[in-house]
């Protein structure tokens, strides 16, 4: 049995006076113990809402969540609020994008870590602070005992993110969800944080859901990658498979449109035309069809289904042929 089984997860934003908007649309995936799964997509594809829905962090008002999220067999979406609070932080940890706004600015770092230890592991304040020093040391914060008494604004961005990871790992959760953990950081600091995450996953066997827009981050970290577009998974593949042979025109387009550090100069980038605003609703065809270089008439009539393909999953009527993909262009 998988550690986490997400089935048909759907999130509707219901606002008074507005048409309901489906942010996440029937997303299903599994996470095995110790596995790193990537959710990749551009802004607005539903990747963050998926993670918030798994953690039950979306406000009840205005958001309709359906489907199931089974964690070791228990459906998190059916748990009472109190039971969910016990799970959050103990079984499932989360690291957010902006460490400054996810840390409490008026409480010292140390207290924010011991709070978790006292709440979930029933430790005394004293034992918890000894453990906190240990945790800060493990995530690579120099002089941890002094840092305990400092406030978030006294730490640099990279150190704040480390502190946040320490909080998320305090109870040794079996699943860690990292939502764009390095987007707000500089590249050299990003490299430090990614190395830290990689190490923690290896050492503790924690499963990791990595949410990012950066395909480079995915390439170095994830075992399995889900590409999201318009709230649906459009392609799933093992890491090497996805980058070597992207099958969905969107995945292929993303890879062709990012400048690569190791590419020769003068190679033209091949952008994806249009923007997310051109999407058509999924029930009337493929949302990506208006931007797709491979679009057929059927793409605007019949919604494609997610079917097994090449060892992964694919949602496309007219996928990129491997030979064409190697040539680097689809148009």
């Amino acid at each position, binding site marked *: 049995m998988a550690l986490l089984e997400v089935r048909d997860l759907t999130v509707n934003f219901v606002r008074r006076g507005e048409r309901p908007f489906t942010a996440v649309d029937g997303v299903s995936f599994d996470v095995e113990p110790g596995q790193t799964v990537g959710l990749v997509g*551009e*802004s607005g594809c539903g990747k963050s809402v998926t993670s918030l829905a798994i953690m039950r962090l979306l406000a009840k008002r205005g958001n309709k969540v359906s489907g199931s999220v089974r964690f070791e067999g228990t459906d998190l979406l059916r748990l009472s609020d109190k039971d969910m609070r016990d799970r959050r932080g103990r079984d499932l940890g989360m690291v957010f994008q902006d460490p400054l706004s996810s840390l409490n600015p008026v409480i010292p770092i140390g207290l924010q870590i011991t709070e978790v230890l006292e709440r979930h592991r029933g430790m005394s304040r004293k034992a918890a602070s000894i453990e906190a020093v240990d945790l800060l040391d493990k995530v*690579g914060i*120099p*002089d941890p005992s002094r840092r305990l008494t400092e*406030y978030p*604004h*006294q*730490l*640099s*961005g*990279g*150190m704040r993110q480390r502190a946040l990871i320490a909080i998320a790992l305090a109870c040794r959760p079996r699943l860690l969800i990292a939502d764009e953990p390095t987007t707000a950081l*500089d*590249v*050299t*600091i*990003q*490299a*430090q944080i*990614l*190395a830290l995450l990689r190490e923690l996953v290896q050492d503790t066997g924690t499963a990791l859901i990595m949410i990012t*827009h*950066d*395909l*480079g*981050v*995915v*390439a*170095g970290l994830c075992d399995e990658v889900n590409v999201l577009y318009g709230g649906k998974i459009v392609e799933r593949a093992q*890491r*090497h498979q996805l*980058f*070597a042979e992207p099958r969905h025109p969107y995945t292929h*387009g*993303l*890879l*062709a*449109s*990012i*400048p*690569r*550090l*190791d*590419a020769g*100069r003068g*190679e*033209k*980038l*091949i*952008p*994806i*035309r249009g*923007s*997310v*605003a051109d999407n058509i609703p999924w029930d009337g065809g493929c949302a990506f069809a208006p931007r797709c270089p491979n679009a057929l008439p059927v793409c605007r009539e019949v919604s494609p289904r997610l079917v097994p393909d090449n060892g992964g999953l694919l949602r496309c009527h007219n996928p990129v042929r491997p030979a064409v993909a190697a040539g680097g262009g689809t148009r």
Partner: protein
Amino acid sequence: MSNPAAEVLLEVSDLKVHFPIKRGIVIDRTIGHVFAVDGVDLAIRRGETYGLVGESGCGKSTLGRAILRLSEPTAGKVVFDGTDVAALKGEELRKARRRMQMIFQDPLSSLDPRQSVESILLEGMRAHGLDKDEEATQRRLRQLLSAVGLPETSLRKYPHEFSGGQRQRIGIARALSVEPDLIVADEPVSALDVSVQAQVVNLLEDLQDRLGLTYLVIAHDLAVVRHISDRIGVMYLGALVEETDADTLYENPMHPYTRALLSAIPVPDPVVEDTREQILLAGDLPSPANPPTGCRFHTRCPWRQASLCDTDRPQLREIGRGHRVACHYAEDIRDGRIQPHEVEPELIELTGALNPDLGPPDVGTVSEIL
């Protein structure tokens, strides 16, 4: 394309921008300086793209703004096509600005939400007296829109009606409206989604080919900079540490910081990611208000040596054709005579005064205020 014989359009020599740190409510005391840009020399030739990379806080944006006199330089010269812009005043400065334009990072906050696109594009032309003939002006507006790939109907619309990529196109059209020679683009694509980034990057390249523009592109993303630049300068804590052409920088980086920066950038290819060697830098960027002595990078440098590094500040020196490096031991590192070692991360003190929106300000004692 880079042509070593082409005439130099912009020459910056020993440019410094220092921001004072003030304390006190009634009596302003200057208690120190942030050395945002501290002695930069660079030359940009006509028609080339010069890329400036570095991490946040390295002074790259301040340098770009100082070149356009949007920030006042503390010292140094900015010679643009024969005239020292840093010394210009009043009307002369205003006239000089027509030839140097800027593209900003965030297209929404750099466009007036209450101005229509037409009015945004006309404002610069009017200020520089380029709108004399009504018919020619209208023709010019349509031409500008088609150059950046926007429909003519955009003229009557307002910035909020456009997507991020389209807004950036408006920003580019605005910069082009006064027919500049030099365009300083400060993080032109970092606010955009990846699929849209490529559109804007390609647009900038096309415009350069058609109009013969000279670009100074400032960005933190080395992959983007490498893609569009002829030459690249790498900045660290207010100074250039390495400067060379784009291919050499990638294939043969000499400065330890450039090497670390290159190895830190994720490549969207698992095969490369699994095999390449990473140089992880320890610690954070030191505060520009209190830069390290000697080489500014010595506190994080894995190749740091016991002598020179912490006492003498290395100057940029030429070690290959058009390849300048500010490192005492560049050749020894290249030839493998010095091996990297572990670096203990240093504690970086963030004080409230350096970041006015962080923490309470220290207002001084009562007797000082009275």
